[in-house]
């Protein structure tokens, strides 16, 4: 590269920016940083769990890494790096690159890589994952999140039913500072709710216990909500908060909402807090986010096998029937490495329970994923593979041409 004076005039800035974003140097630096945060993130999750590591290192814009747990060093986060890499690849390897036949292989393989990254972004932004647990004979269309807890307020119909729920989403709750509170307006309901003392992992303990009696926080109905240390496996955290419902005319109700009153076994019913406001009854609870799939799945049989004489799982599989209103029923087998893909959803045999099975009746647990970019990695791999193969063949041809001409010369 000939060294020329750089024109720093503002008119030239876009051009400079373009050159910067398309450079090999940027690619190399971003890749080095990606390697570094991958390494740090790997070590971080040993002590802090996968979810925390993901949040801090891989899906963040910036982060501060504590070297040897002491020296803080600011670093770019995974999301930022991958975004820069994406731009860098787009400009450097696709837009700016000289279009000639011998580069076609590399061009194609970079397309593949762009697609892989794009798939990552789409997954990050739009994919959902949850699980469905069923006892034999049960059927459901409901999918439950692993760790997204939300507050729901449901107007009660009759004794113990509700058809609608007002939802304060987990994204809002997780941002809350436990020491402050926040008031949420529930549209069309005659009251607001004030959420305070939101702990991601909490324990409601009766004040008769010494540990609770001396703890800070509000006592309600003989209970206090105590903050607990977070588990490294985020699924194990059970959140809680103090909720205060304030009606338009000053009517008030107050309680502790705790995740422990929601459901844990497939056939359990949650136990919400019931209160009256303006003459109507409402139920409030903190529960895992749920959504539904456009069909029902019924567990006909769950089979669980171990290697003979050992505790090692050899196979677990679920025989299910898929039911849809305007379709015939369909029998499907779901087992390890053989998921059920249907209507954009994928059902995987994930686990089983309860832990002391088979003493108690066993249930089967499916992971249910919905990902618009589900198959992109496969296509990306095929494209990259084709690109690299073409590149290899072209290089080979060129060399053979060159060596032939060399030989001809001599």
């Amino acid at each position, binding site marked *: 590269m000939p060294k020329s004076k750089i024109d720093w005039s503002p008119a030239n800035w876009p*051009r400079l*920016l*373009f050159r910067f*974003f398309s450079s090999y140097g940027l690619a190399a630096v971003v890749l080095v940083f990606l390697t570094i945060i991958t390494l740090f993130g790997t070590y971080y999750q040993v002590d802090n769990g996968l979810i925390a590591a993901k949040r801090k290192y891989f899906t963040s814009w910036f982060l501060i890494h504590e070297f040897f747990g002491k020296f803080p060093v600011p670093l770019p986060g995974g999301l930022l790096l991958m975004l820069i890499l994406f*731009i860098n690849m*787009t*400009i450097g390897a696709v*837009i*700016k690159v000289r279009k000639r036949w011998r580069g076609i292989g590399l061009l194609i393989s970079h397309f593949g890589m762009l697609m892989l990254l794009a798939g990552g972004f789409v997954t990050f932004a739009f994919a959902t994952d949850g699980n469905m647990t069923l006892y034999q004979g049960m059927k*459901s*269309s*409901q999918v439950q999140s692993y760790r997204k807890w939300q507050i729901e307020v*449901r107007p009660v119909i009759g*004794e*113990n*039913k*509700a*058809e*609608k*729920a*007002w*939802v*304060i*989403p987990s*994204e*809002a709750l997780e941002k809350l500072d436990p020491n402050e509170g926040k008031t*949420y307006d*529930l*549209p069309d309901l005659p009251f607001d709710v004030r959420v305070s003392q939101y702990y991601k992992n909490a*324990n*409601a*303990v*009766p004040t*008769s*216990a*010494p540990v609770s009696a001396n703890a800070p926080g509000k006592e*309600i*109905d*003989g*209970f206090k909500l105590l903050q607990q240390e977070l*588990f490294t*496996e985020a699924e*194990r955290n059970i959140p809680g908060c103090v909720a205060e419902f304030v009606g338009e005319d000053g009517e008030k109700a107050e*309680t*502790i909402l*705790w995740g*422990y*009153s929601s459901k844990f076994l497939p056939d359990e*019913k949650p*136990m*919400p807090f*019931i209160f009256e406001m303006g003459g109507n009854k409402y*139920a409030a*609870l903190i529960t895992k986010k*749920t959504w*539904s799939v456009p069909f029902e799945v019924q567990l006909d049989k769950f089979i669980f096998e171990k290697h003979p004489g050992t505790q090692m799982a050899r196979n677990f599989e679920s025989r299910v029937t898929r039911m849809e209103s305007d379709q015939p029923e369909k029998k499907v087998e779901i087992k390890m490495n053989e998921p059920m893909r249907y209507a954009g959803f994928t059902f995987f045999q994930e686990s089983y329970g*309860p*832990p*002391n099975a088979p*003493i108690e009746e066993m249930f089967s647990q499916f992971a249910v994923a919905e990902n618009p970019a589900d198959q992109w990695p496969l296509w990306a791999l095929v494209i990259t593979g084709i690109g690299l193969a073409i590149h290899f063949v072209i290089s080979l041809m060129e060399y053979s041409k060159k060596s032939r001409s060399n030989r001809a010369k001599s």
Partner: protein
Amino acid sequence: MKSSYTIFCLAAAAILTSCGGDKAAVSVRDLLPEEQEFKLAKSTTERFRYAARETSGSGHEGHAHATKEGGPQLIHDIPEGWTEKPAAMMRDVNLAFGENGEGECYLSRLPGAGGGLEANVNRWRKQMGAEPLTPEAVQKLPKKTLFGQPATFVDVSGDYGGMSGTEGKKNYRMLGLVLSNSAGAVFVKLIGPKALVDANEKQFNQFVDSLDVKL
């Protein structure tokens, strides 16, 4: 060249504008038929899955153990058919059941975490010849209320004890509760021949429910 960086400028602008905006507002959703029903908790205690104290009584007078003069006392019921054994080392409550007292049930405490929840659950499982559980599996174990707090419930059947096999007791069953936090750990353990334990499960629950501390 010129066209390529115009594309780049456009892309950059698009990315910049797409950022920002907080969407976390209250929304309304329809409940699926299967999630419409809920259970009515009679009290906050029940809502938090603490067994209601008043339902557990069996007519027995609460049995009190003084741990210290004038200090807090441990009280509990002695279920039907069970007998109290003299308190032994490390055992705050020591009960026996079965015709020859083959079954025993006791409460013990350890200061500190006592090795942690997993260690204790797996220690018990090992005594019964069962495989240790992973920490996840331990965490998923069912809970029962002990002193108003959720305690991990262990239920293992198998062969009990015996290092080199000869003293092993075949076909036993163990029920246990572990309540552990940084301050200390409380254990309730019931062990006996399986058939006998099966018959005494209700008594075990009753005993556990009745445990309380009187300040």
